[in-house]
């Protein structure tokens, strides 16, 4: 078998090629590289350790099964996130959990500057707490999208590819989700003081 080339050592393409050639052990490298990201994303969306572990396992099994179908049209990272996104969203749909419906008018009428300024005055630990609570109230799809953008550092184009939405749709959705987060954080803060 061909030995590792130092330049190739960390590229996904190299590992994929080895797996496709029958070297199943090379999958550990893919697993080591992406397991934490996928597990963390699943956990933040479903907010349950056992479910997140099961979903992450399911994602990696699906990735392995469909590895021959990966044509390299997008980066491997985007492809694996697309599988993760679909798996997690499908799971949450099956669970039929209900999410807080925020009145559109409420989002439109809220003074963003006021909300941001109010948050700016809160101490950082409290801000983190408020963000966590606000995230918990978002529907899973929106939660995943905002996590892709901020936590995973994905670009708008990549998010569009992952979620199968148009670029303009992703931009609009992200803008609304950000606004929604501010509204929810402000509301949680207000309720906390009352």
């Amino acid at each position, binding site marked *: 078998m*061909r*030995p590792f080339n130092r330049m190739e050592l960390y590229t996904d393409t190299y590992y994929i090629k080895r797996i496709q050639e029958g070297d*199943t052990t090379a*999958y*550990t490298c893919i*697993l*080591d590289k992406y*397991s*934490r*990201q996928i*597990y*963390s994303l699943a*956990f*933040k969306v479903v907010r349950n*350790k056992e479910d*997140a*572990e099961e979903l*992450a*396992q399911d994602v*990696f*099994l699906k990735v*392995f*099964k469909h590895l021959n179908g990966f044509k390299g049209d997008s980066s491997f990272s985007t492809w694996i996130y697309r599988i993760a996104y679909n798996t997690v969203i499908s799971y949450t749909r099956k669970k039929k959990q209900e999410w807080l419906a925020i009145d559109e008018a409420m989002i439109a009428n809220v003074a*963003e*500057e006021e909300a*941001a300024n109010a*948050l*700016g005055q809160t101490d*950082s630990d409290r*801000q*983190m707490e408020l*963000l*966590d609570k606000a995230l918990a109230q978002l529907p899973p799809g929106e939660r995943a999208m*905002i*996590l892709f953008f*901020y*936590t995973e550092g994905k670009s708008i184009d990549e998010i569009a590819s992952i979620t199968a939405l148009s670029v303009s749709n992703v931009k609009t959705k992200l803008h609304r989700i*950000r606004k929604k*987060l*501010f509204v929810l954080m402000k509301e949680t803060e207000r309720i906390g003081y009352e």
Partner: protein
Amino acid sequence: MNKEEEREDILKDLFNRMPREEVPADFRQEVMQQIYAESVRIKKRNERFGLLSVIAASLLILALAAASIIYLGLPEIEWTSLPSIPFYLYIGALALLLLLGDYKLRESYKKKHSRL
């Protein structure tokens, strides 16, 4: 910095400070067990598919042969004088030579790549 940037920065900063969950200790082992099991399953499925393909192809050839014998009848072979024997021998020798060349080239390719 304008208000929009400031607001986005608050979220960006907060998300950056959000801790990333640790993967459970046995996660890697459990996934790899499933992957090895799946790998064996795929290999077995491919073997079965290969075997079925060979059987299907053989049956098709047999059916075609039977049909051609039934409908066309067996051709009559006449063992008369064969003036073109040297020509057939030449073609046969050429085919063997090419086969030998192919074998040697494959051998040298394998040696070269196993050294890398």
